[in-house]
């Protein structure tokens, strides 16, 4: 009776850090996936740990949980988390219908095809709606990618990428104006995105000539 109590004094993150190769933490990790979904948090390390345990004992795999992990991984774009998860999921499992759809969705996101992505997502609402924050996460990825690429872009291009128009798009832009430094041009409604080193390369700091102190420290004996 003592051990479960003892265990519960650890957080799941700690379990993953201290004892990742223990089959007994599998149920904790599964619960943790559900917790991530409801509380809109995310832990790649814990989820990879669970996928690894499934890989060690395929008979314990719960495909429902796997689907949730994959949706969370899509939401982590632009990080390659979706591929990192797929590397651990056997091919025959990937053949299941729900996973095939998620793979197609990932493909559209990876190749910047937002229009196709939103069309396909609409067809899979029943899977995606179970994970709160999905749309917002993809919209955040879309705006991230746009701001790496554009200084200024037409409203229509933005509308397509975030899948919004009319009043909801106005509201979205309004929010970005206030919080992220977007500017809307008066004459044609084009959107000026905030500057970063990727859309304004002149901002890129020249860090190449910084030599860390440890490196110089190695020749101190010589200099002295």
């Amino acid at each position, binding site marked *: 009776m003592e051990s479960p109590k003892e265990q519960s004094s650890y957080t799941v993150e700690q379990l993953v850090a201290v004892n990742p190769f223990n089959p007994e933490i599998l149920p904790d990790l599964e619960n943790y996936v559900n917790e991530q979904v409801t509380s809109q948090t995310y832990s790649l*390390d814990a989820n*990879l740990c669970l996928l690894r345990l499934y*890989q060690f004992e395929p008979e314990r795999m719960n495909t429902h949980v796997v689907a949730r992990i994959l949706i969370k991984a899509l939401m982590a774009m632009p990080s390659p988390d979706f591929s*990192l998860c797929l590397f651990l999921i056997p091919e025959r499992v990937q053949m299941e219908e729900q996973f095939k759809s998620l793979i197609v969705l990932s493909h559209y996101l990876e*190749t910047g095809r937002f229009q196709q992505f939103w069309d396909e997502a609409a067809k899979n609402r029943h899977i995606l709606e179970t994970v709160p924050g999905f749309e917002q996460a993809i919209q955040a990825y879309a705006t991230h990618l746009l701001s790496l690429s554009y200084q*200024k872009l037409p409203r229509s291009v933005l509308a397509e990428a975030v899948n919004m128009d009319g009043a909801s798009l106005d509201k979205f832009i309004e929010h970005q104006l206030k919080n992220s430094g977007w500017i809307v041009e008066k004459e044609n409604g084009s959107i000026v995105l905030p500057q970063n080193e990727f*859309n304004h390369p002149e901002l890129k700091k*020249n860090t*190449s000539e910084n030599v860390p102190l440890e490196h110089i420290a190695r020749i101190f004996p*010589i200099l002295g």
Partner: protein
Amino acid sequence: MTTTYDFEDAPTNYDDVQRQGGQDAVYDPNFVPDSVKSFVVHMYRHIREKNVYEIHQMCETSFQTLSERLFKDTPWPSVEAIAPYVDNDHVFCLLYREMWFRHLYARLSPTLKQRIDSYDNYCSLFQVVLHGVVNMQLPNQWLWDMVDEFVYQFQSFCQYRAKMKNKTEQEIALLKQNDKAWNVYGVLNFLQALVEKSTIIQILEQEKEGLEQFTATDGYDYSGGSNVLKVLGYFSMVGLLRVHCLLGDYHTGLKWLQPIDITQQGVYTSVIGCHIATIYHYGFANLMLRRYVDAVREFNKILLYIYKTKQYHQKSPQYEQLLKKNEQMYALLAVCLSLCPQTKLVDESVNSQLREKYGEKMMRMQRYDDEAFGIYDELFSYACPKFITPSAPSFEEPLVNYNQDAYRLQLKMFLYEVKQQQLLSGVRTFLKVYSSISLAKLANYMEVDEPTLRTILLTYKHKTHSVGSDGKIISNADIDFYINNDMIYVVESKPAKRYGDFFLRQIAKLEGVINDMDRIKLE
């Protein structure tokens, strides 16, 4: 210091030849040739006296020479047969068996029973080390070989187990009965326990603050303690990187390596096999994570190192393995550079080797037609780790082989990535020759409509910008761009010349030369 061993100089006696040399000779595990007697006696003494140099010589040279001469296609004498010559020393016997099995795996094909026995031997050996009753000082080379061999035999076992089709009933019964042998949990837990128990991560942390010495002494302990647990723990981090690569978990693999700063020299560079294994797996994992620049940078460094030092390793028993990994890393470098052109990161001599080996293939890979995918497939298959399926078979009829499953999955995923990038080399060709170009014009050149071109450009941005381990976005593009409404502006990144490091190296070199000159006494 210069002890001469009779087993190296003395002519092989008739008895040895007759018993061991002939093709049809029967292997008698209980027969111990004089040369082996002398070998174990000396080895035992050197271990007790903590004579690391002599132990190293015996492992690297004498053991190989004897194996070549007497045990070309038979195992060494059994541990029971040599035990009387070494006071039946428990730990020495474990070490002897470790070498015994390593030799067997290298030269013969182990039976299932032998695989299981070898696992048991590693368990006993690691238990002894973990419980801290070891007072030995062993060469880094040997300690690396232990971790390396442990992971290799695990991988080999997974491959063997997955070939279910032609297993005999006895083999299957034995497999079922010994389900703990080479169990993935067991293997990973041993490696992790060695890392934990050795407190190597804390030691490396404290070393940065000058509170501890590890790297400076190459991991050896000159104050009378043992280096075994510490160094095994250190190498186990590389072992864990490797196992995770074999499983396809590249992210976690790299996390295990993090305590080792691979931009610097370290204990991992003190053993060439470890140096190569570390960089090979680091580079491969980064390739799969799309951090091409990190992969290219480290591949370049190690390939240059091998290029310059190859001749010193010719006599090493690991030489063949070294050459093979060298070739594989050139193949991986060709893949990285085809996906992410970065010639400025590659040293001249590495580049000319690369062109010689893969120049023509790399040209064809740029075309992204079926033939090009074929070459990506070929190079990946040639150079990837031997992926494993870690789970036990179901043992239900019909028995099927699943030893290729893991490899096929990783290959498929990799080629999928390549296909997603197939239009990028085309767009790059145009970006290279313009400083600015309108979307309409480029769309026209590329024979696509404007919305499609926008998606291609977004893909280019996404695929050339990776997310670093700290979550920061890193550009891997040598040609980049930004769009202002309908115009594309091209940015060519200037190579970062590292004068600082260059001067540091030259200062150290000059100091060395001056010291040498000071030592010369002129009459």
